[in-house]
């Protein structure tokens, strides 16, 4: 081996003990001892790695994460048990409640849960919000709000098409929707005033209509879009 400088990749391998040839390892270690230039570079590499590794101790503020995860996992497994045990229609009504509570309470919103809890005492209407919540949850959409007049949610574009068909078959006659560029995390930061403003952009259409493109001339890739919607009775 010549007495040329050590290249960076060799240093990196050397640091991680990834040089498997004894001769090469000795050469590198000797060279680092006597070449100031390479030695300084090696020290910079070690400092870089040390600094990066310090991030390992970083802790994030994740309130309630373990409780939520465990509770949701448990309620889902309960749901599977239910599905085996009870006739489909009865199960659907129970599950709608479970789903709604888990989607909302555990994401820091309480409205759906409150609404459903008060309804649990009565026999749910077949075309009530519980059914809508269940349909949305089955298609892995998010339930954002359950109000007296509507259920608001968000779902991927291609699933929205299916959802609107299913809703139509179940007797819901009106859906308002708006296509959003993606799953719209911004909505969570908005206060109710701003959010109300956002909803004004939701177009009003019948449940059978399927959205084709978003506004204007912009043709977006539908597979990457989500739809925010409200389902009215």
């Amino acid at each position: 081996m010549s007495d040329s400088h050590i290249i960076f990749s060799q240093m990196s391998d050397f640091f991680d003990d990834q040089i498997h040839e004894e001769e090469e390892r000795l050469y590198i270690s000797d060279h680092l001892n006597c070449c100031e230039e390479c030695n300084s570079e090696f020290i910079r590499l070690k400092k870089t790695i040390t600094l990066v590794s310090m991030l390992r101790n970083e802790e994030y503020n994740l309130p309630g994460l373990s409780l939520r995860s465990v509770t949701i996992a448990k309620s889902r497994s309960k749901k599977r048990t239910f599905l085996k045990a009870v006739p489909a229609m009865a199960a659907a009504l129970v599950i709608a409640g479970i789903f709604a509570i888990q989607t909302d309470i555990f994401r820091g919103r309480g409205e759906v849960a409150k609404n459903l809890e008060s309804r649990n005492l009565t026999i749910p209407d077949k075309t009530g919000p519980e059914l809508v919540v269940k349909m949305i949850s089955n298609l892995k959409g998010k339930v954002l709000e359950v109000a007296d007049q509507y259920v608001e949610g968000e779902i991927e574009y291609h699933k929205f098409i299916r959802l609107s068909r299913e809703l139509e078959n179940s007797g819901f006659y009106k859906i308002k929707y708006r296509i959003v560029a993606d799953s719209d995390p911004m909505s969570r930061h908005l206060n109710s005033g701003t959010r109300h403003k956002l909803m004004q952009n939701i177009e009003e259409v019948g449940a059978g209509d399927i959205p084709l493109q978003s506004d204007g001339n912009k043709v977006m890739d539908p597979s990457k879009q989500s739809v925010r919607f409200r389902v009215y009775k």
Partner: protein
Amino acid sequence: MTHTEDIETIEKVLKGDTEAFSEIIKKYQNMIFRYVYSKFYNYDEAQDITQDIFIMAIEALNSFRRESKFSTWLYSIMVNYCKNYHKKSRRYNTIPINIARGEDEYELQLPDERQKPEDEIINSDSLRIVKEEIDKLPDDYREILLMRDIEGMSYNEISQLLKINLSNVKVRIHRGREFLKNRLFSRGLI
């Protein structure tokens, strides 16, 4: 919690004590969140995804083969989840801000600076700079430095997780480190 303790906890969960999994979550939540956040750069969304990953882990726990480390198994669930998570990847989350200007209103798109995790914990200037520079790395390099230099995974583990061969693992580690080293040098940190 050691590897053996992980296994003991998992046994409990498999016997029906789902709550026992909380211990696992507390132990690994920072590791999972760090990776997820580095992929999506949105604090809320990263929390939701982290939660989904743990739920998925509970539900898939039966398929955990004890010959590998639990952390590696969990990591592989996470890597796959993030890979399949359909979302336009974008570096910043934009929030519309309405600015009133007489009768007009128009929207400004600004990066969401409000809830960066580093604000929570790291005050040290140098670590803040390190994080800034890691964030600027190309995705592949950031991912691999996180695995190697933060989580301390072996080259073999990384190779399996990312489904790339060992020489590619090495190349990415070299390049990522060199890139970062140059950046930290130019910022006078090393």
